[in-house]
């Protein structure tokens, strides 16, 4: 939890488990070194993870928010800090600051259909939303999860997706941009799944996370189907150093992605979204 008196001080967590997800992503399960009151967060929020002497990186929470004794982060080892977390491995200690930022509109979505569109590792911050929806399944209408990955080897949470696919109350569609021999699933960008997905556009809340280009085309496709701009939510990524709106790095027009985001209702940023170099 954030130390409100000094939000810059990290709390130590031990890496209790490391789960390899794909060839370049893994999930760490973290437990606090000292007993605390539990870690509560809302789906879509992120933590700053610190490696001793190396630095900090913002990483979305991807675990079930109902579980407060441990937290999970799915990490793609592409930077200094993320690679260092990978090297730490099981038993290693990291610093945690957070949770920070806004969350997916799970309350507003009640009574509506929900369409979740994820691209690549963008599925990670949406997983807590799915857990929460499944925990209160009766409160929502139809649920569609449309997930696009690079190749079949890049599909995150494979077993979970298979398990969820077995449920009769959720439509799960996975597609890959580039197939390999033996892949019998869909091929094509994730936007191609939208026209055929089952939801009532006028009563749908859409939650999108992925690279900006993917989100741009996803939004267009959802709007083509009649989903209202104010019912579309996206998760933005910007450089973040402090997580609390002081360092200025994550500015996106008039917003600070760390505190006004990362989840934005699309109509609040649509005039600047997609503009070059804002």
């Amino acid at each position, binding site marked *: 939890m*954030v130390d*409100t*008196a*000094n*939000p*810059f*001080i*990290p709390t*130590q967590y*031990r890496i209790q488990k490391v789960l390899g997800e794909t060839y370049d992503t893994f999930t760490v399960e973290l437990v606090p*070194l000292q007993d605390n009151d539990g870690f509560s967060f809302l789906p879509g929020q992120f933590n700053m993870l*610190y490696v*001793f*002497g*190396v*630095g*900090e990186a913002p990483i979305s929470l991807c675990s079930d928010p109902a579980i407060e004794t441990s937290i999970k982060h799915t990490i793609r080892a*592409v*930077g200094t800090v993320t690679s260092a977390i990978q090297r730490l491995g099981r038993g*290693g*200690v*990291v*610093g945690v600051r957070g949770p920070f930022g806004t969350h997916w509109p799970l309350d507003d979505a009640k009574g509506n259909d929900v369409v979740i569109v994820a691209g690549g590792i963008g599925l990670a911050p949406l997983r807590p939303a799915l857990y929460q929806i499944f925990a209160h399944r009766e409160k929502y209408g139809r649920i569609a999860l449309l997930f696009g990955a690079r190749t079949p080897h890049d599909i995150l949470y494979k077993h979970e997706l298979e398990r969820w696919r077995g449920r009769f109350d959720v439509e799960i569609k996975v597609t890959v941009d580039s197939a390999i021999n033996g892949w019998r699933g869909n091929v094509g960008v994730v936007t191609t799944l939208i026209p055929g997905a089952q939801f009532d556009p006028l009563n749908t809340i859409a939650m999108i996370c992925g690279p900006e280009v993917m989100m741009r085309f996803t939004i267009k496709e959802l709007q083509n189907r009649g989903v209202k701009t104010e019912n579309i939510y996206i998760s933005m*990524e*910007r*450089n973040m*150093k*402090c997580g*609390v*709106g*002081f*360092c*200025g*790095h994550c*500015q996106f*027009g*008039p*917003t*600070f992605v760390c*505190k006004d985001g990362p989840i934005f209702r699309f109509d609040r940023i649509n*005039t*600047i979204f997609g*503009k*070059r*170099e*804002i």
Partner: protein
Amino acid sequence: MGKNNKNTTEKVILKHDHFQTLIDLLKEREYRIVGPTLGEGAIVYDDLNTVDDLPIGWTDDQDGGVYRLKKRNDRAFFGYTVGPHSWKKFLFPSQLRLWKARRDENGFHIENDKNEIRKFAFIGVRSCDLHAISVQDTVFMHGIYSEPNYKARREHTFILAVNCGMAGGTCFCASMSTGPEATSGFDLALTEILQEKGEHYFVVETGTELGAEILLNVPHREAKKEEIHAAETIIKNTSQSMGRTMETKDIKDLLYRNYEHPRWDDVAKRCLTCANCTMVCPTCFCTTVEDVTDLTGEHAERWRKWDSCFTMDFSFIHGGSIRASAKSRYRQWMTHKLATWIDQFGTSGCVGCGRCITWCPVAIDITEETREIRKSEQTHSPNNSIKEGNNNENA
């Protein structure tokens, strides 16, 4: 700063030779006295021991990309405007250790790192800078979180303001409604008066109980009507001799409408992205952090340093920089200062101090850039249809 009190607004006269008494009293109360002094070929803010550390008899000559110290023909204490420093260097140090940690059998632990922070007395704060301090107060203390390092420095600061007796060549506080008269945010405010007969005194206004308390022990007398009038005249003259003006009407929407204006390409050709403007700006607050370890690898520290939106690294996310072009970085800075700041914090991020104009090596002028964008809207409507010729001049 102490509490504001309406009953303490009676103006009094402080003779120039009693100014040292004021400093001594603040010292007795264990303030660290900082204020204008000569250094680095300019008037900078640093520790003051005695009144003689002030740049007495000096002034400055400022214009776009130009700053020169000059001798005055009198012994004015505050006969100059603002230099390259601002008070943020004290309240928001350019380098600050956020914490230190040590490796241990459990991984690592954060070590207790309580630094005693001496309370500051700021001597000679101009109205633009009072507004700048107030702007940073909002940034650091009025959000969901309060920035503890800033708060610790800010809370006990004593502020002695000075109403400007002259306007600099790059000043435009009058058009930003941030000066030249100090109207709030001070404990005491002075207007310096030098008469031809050699009389040298200050008309003093009290802003807080603390100010009144300090003043109580400095020899002073009640101000006469004509003395108050003389002070008002000085401020009025300063207000009318601003080197620059900024038209602020509709400025937020003006810039929001013109994200794609060709003027940004034009300014990008001149801008060196040196970040000077952000360093001298009294409201710019961006920082980066550096994590360091010692040779043993047993100790780690996290340092926070001033950063600038003009660097490539600033907007870097995995894959590349969001703002790779000079154009986008200048646009980010100026649009933040004059437009998005208003949405973020309810005020402009610009206080009209003119530092960014003076200290820009190529004399880019924020008032001129704004004016050009505004002008193009007036001459070419609808809004941003600018003739293509602009872009080809230097081709």
